[in-house]
């Protein structure tokens, strides 16, 4: 280090940057066990290479690479780059700073503060950043701001990005208010909050003549920092991430006397970071489409085939393989009749004949044996072997046996399903939701859907769409059914046509018959709930049901369908106190009277109910009556 610091003194005015390479989260499990985040191949080039290339092109002369895990691998990689005289090594000096004790982004910066390497304004880059921004003008601008506002600590760099763009990771949705000079007055990441309303402090409107509220931004994960940033991290031990820092500064503006500015990129300038699989996917897509020009995947290394397929060196692909939007690493072998779409296959992996892979990530050195199916958001770790005719869906699979293992999670000798333990129970929903949001982007049309949702929901003052679970297929189907029925009822459409409509959506979203029955009934009940809960509620519901009789007749044909119907009633009722207490009896009575459900079905369903629940209590009188009636009738018969 002494040698290095001597050189530092020589280059007094070098423009400096800090890269923190560890993410401190488990987004990339199980792959992150074997490959550090920085070396994860993105279009067959380690992410860190893009970052370094960007920094060198951006005018940075000295970079501190801060790493806490996989230190050897990263050091080795950097040394290799220097040996190969990669372009960036020519204009930029990279120092690897190591500290194994750091547990968060904030810790890293505190450590750096203690070491005191940085002299002036610097660029702070979060893990996985890829960009083509020219940093020098931004640094200059920041410098100008600090001349006017002595307390300016940080300039956040954002990129304009339209609503519904796939690059907008729902987890990273940002809402920001700035004044005319770009000072950030309000900054909130919407992705992980559960609040339904966002409250702006009144002061920001009172104290500023103009305030712009922006929601069309994408965080580039790049920020320009004043020297004051590191000491601020040291002084405030609760700052774990950059967002904590921004929040803390805004909250304690008066106390700390520090401000944050923002800068929005326009034109060909691009920035983004690989923070989870979804951003991994979108950044691959954008690299492929040259959005990050002149930072590009290696042209020599990759061959670009048709259908958006990219293959590394020595890839063997059979002629009969159907590939669509796939990125493959080096030495990948693809067998006959393989069907791969929207997926990533890492190096040295072999895919045998008749395998289907879609929307998944297959790690390096894997073997997928004949006729297997790997679907929807699966991630295979390094060296996993999937056995013949295996079916894997939406799972994280690793090759080594985890400590605690459920027998269900064994998929093969070298394949174990990884279940992430979520420690804090109250957060379970949040975590599960966050995970869903960070998975691969499933449907190309989804972007639009969620955009529409975003509008309608905010208008209705219901929850923002970022809170609802990621719209999966059944959920989409359900909203479609509600839409069809509502429209049908309002416009007095023929029920036969509505049935056709529902059936076609059913095939579009690949929903089972049972789910169709369930959702149709649920939809009708939900519609009825839109009415005021007064005494006229039931008559309103009756009108609805009356109108939809042909539909009910069509779907409720046998006992299992009736059970589905009753489950729907239960489902809606348990989520709505009013309905449970007042109306559930009447609803059941109605269904029974009109012969939509049989007595047997009701009793069978009733026996499955939780005896202690409020709902059970509400239903009991009705079923009791039914049983009595039956006994009576049977005795009459005798």
């Amino acid at each position, binding site marked *: 280090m002494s040698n290095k610091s001597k050189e530092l003194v020589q280059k007094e005015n070098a423009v400096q940057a800090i890269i923190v390479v560890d993410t401190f989260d488990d987004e990339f499990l199980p792959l992150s066990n074997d490959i550090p985040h920085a070396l994860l191949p993105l279009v067959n080039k380690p992410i860190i290479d893009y970052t370094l290339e960007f920094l*060198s*092109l951006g*005018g940075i002369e000295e970079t501190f690479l801060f790493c806490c895990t996989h230190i050897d691998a990263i050091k080795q990689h950097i040394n290799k780059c220097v040996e190969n*005289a990669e*372009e960036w090594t*020519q*204009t930029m000096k990279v120092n690897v700073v190591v500290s194994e004790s750091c547990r968060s982004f904030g810790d890293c910066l505190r450590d750096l503060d203690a070491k005191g390497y940085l002299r002036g304004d610097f660029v702070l880059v979060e893990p996985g950043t890829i960009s*083509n921004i*020219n940093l020098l003008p931004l640094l200059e601008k920041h410098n100008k701001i600090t001349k006017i506002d002595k307390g300016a600590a940080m300039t956040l760099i954002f*990129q*304009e*990005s*339209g*609503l*519904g*763009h*796939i690059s907008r990771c729902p987890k990273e949705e940002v809402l920001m208010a700035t004044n005319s000079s770009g000072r950030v007055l309000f900054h909130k990441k919407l992705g992980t909050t559960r609040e339904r309303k966002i409250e702006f402090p009144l002061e920001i409107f009172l104290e500023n003549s103009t305030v712009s509220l922006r929601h*069309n931004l994408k965080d580039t994960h790049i920020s320009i920092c004043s020297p004051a940033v590191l000491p601020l991290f040291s002084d405030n031990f609760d700052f774990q991430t950059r967002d904590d820092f921004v929040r803390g500064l805004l909250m304690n503006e008066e106390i700390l006397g520090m401000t944050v500015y923002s800068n929005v990129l*326009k*034109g*060909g*300038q*691009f920035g983004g970071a690989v923070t989870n699989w979804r951003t991994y996917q979108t950044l691959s897509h954008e690299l492929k*489409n*040259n*959005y*990050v*020009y*002149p930072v590009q995947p290696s*042209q020599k290394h990759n061959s670009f085939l048709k259908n958006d397929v990219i293959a590394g060196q020595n890839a063997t692909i059979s002629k009969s393989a159907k590939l669509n939007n796939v990125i493959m690493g080096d030495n990948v072998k693809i067998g006959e009749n393989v069907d791969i779409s929207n997926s990533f296959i890492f190096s040295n992996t072999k895919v045998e004949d008749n395998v289907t892979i879609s929307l998944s990530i297959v790690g390096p050195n894997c073997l997928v044996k004949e006729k297997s199916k790997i679907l929807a958001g699966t991630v295979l770790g390094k060296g996993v072997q999937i056995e013949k005719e295996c079916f894997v869906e939406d799972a994280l699979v690793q090759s080594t046996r985890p400590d605690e293992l459920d027998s269900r999670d064994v998929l093969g000798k070298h394949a174990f399903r990884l279940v992430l333990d979520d420690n804090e129970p109250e957060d379970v929903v949040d975590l599960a939701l966050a995970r869903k949001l960070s998975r691969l982007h499933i449907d*190309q049309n989804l*972007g*639009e859907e969620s*955009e529409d949702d975003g509008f309608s929901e905010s208008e209705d003052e219901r929850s923002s769409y970022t809170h609802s679970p990621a719209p999966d297929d059944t959920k989409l189907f359900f909203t479609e059914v509600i839409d069809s029925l509502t429209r049908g009822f309002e416009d007095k459409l023929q029920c036969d046509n509505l049935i056709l409509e529902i059936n076609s959506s059913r095939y579009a979203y690949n929903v089972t018959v049972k789910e169709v029955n369930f959702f149709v009934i649920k939809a009708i009940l939900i519609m009825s709930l839109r009415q005021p809960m007064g005494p006229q509620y039931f008559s309103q519901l009756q009108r609805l049901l009356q109108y939809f009789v042909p539909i009910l007749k069509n779907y409720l044909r046998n006992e299992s369908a009736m059970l589905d119907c009753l489950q729907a009633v239960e489902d809606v009722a348990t989520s709505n106190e009013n309905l449970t207490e007042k109306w559930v009896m009447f609803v059941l009575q109605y269904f029974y009277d009109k012969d939509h459900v049989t007595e047997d079905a009701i009793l069978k369903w009733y026996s499955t109910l939780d005896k202690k629940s409020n709902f059970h209590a509400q239903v009991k009188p009705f079923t009791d009556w039914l049983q009595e009636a039956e006994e009576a009738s049977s005795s009459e018969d005798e």
Partner: protein
Amino acid sequence: MTHKEDLSDINKLISDIKQKKLITSYEIALKTEEIVEALISKRNWKHADELMDLIKLCIKFCTECLPQEATATNIMRHILKVIREEFEVVSKKKTEIQSLHQLVTANPNDVLDYTTPLKDLKMSLLDHLSEYKVELETSTDNIATQAAEHIHTNEIILTVGKSNLVEKFLKNAAKKRSINVIVLEQAPLYQGHEMAARLAKANIQTTIIPDSAVFAMMSRVNKVIIGTHTVLANGGLRAASGVHSIALAAKRYSVPVMVLSHMYKFSPIYSASHKQEAFNVMASPANVLPYSSGPILNKVQVLNPVFDYVPPELVTLFISHQGGNAPSYVYRLLSELYHQDDYYL
């Protein structure tokens, strides 16, 4: 390993080009010449062979890092030829360039040995290079002074985008004659706007039209005068994207297409080779369809090629500081500019 140190200047050049500190080919050409001159005068080389190897290394490195950048490598390639010539002069030996004649007459004994150390070589090389530098510096003016020979009074000239050379050429013509210039705006960067503004400032009657109007306007145009990025070995062009369609429209109306080019833009490369990716670059589509356009970007693929290949039959004349040449004569210019052994490195 001295390898890295040798290339440090070239590295600086490459990063300057990449960071857009050097933009025009003229700047790059001058800078490259300076670097090689410094290399010759300061570096401790023993004989011509060593020096040539050094420069060849620079060329290779340059083509690897900037496959589309022909100017810097061409300058270096020309200097290689200069070294060979000076060596012959100083050592009073002659070598034949590869030809049928040489094939028949060559004597295996008179292959030049470049490893012979020569005392005067360095001085004469530096002399020659300073001449060459003057040639580079005056190239633009030399080309511009020919304007009056090619442009006549009241002619309508069509040009595209922005080129310093074309601008100077037209301004020079306008000094003596009244001309009318039509500028294509050249989407998506719209550099034509700036060009038109500059011409208008020099009191030239200027009209700006969208790229799509080129065919409609061509019937009234007398001459098309354009710059180019590179002139290929077969007389074709690697020019800004959109030039091919202009050349085709000109062909349709039999309008002569004149290409202004410095000598260092003539390159011994062809358009069709398996290293095809190196021919064109796809720039960021953000200029075509802004990144903020939203969900549409999820569905479309936007291409923004930087270059066009224009076949030689669509070019009427190249104007360099040596005068006008037909495309079929390019091979000859190349053999004058570079030694044949240095064509492919």
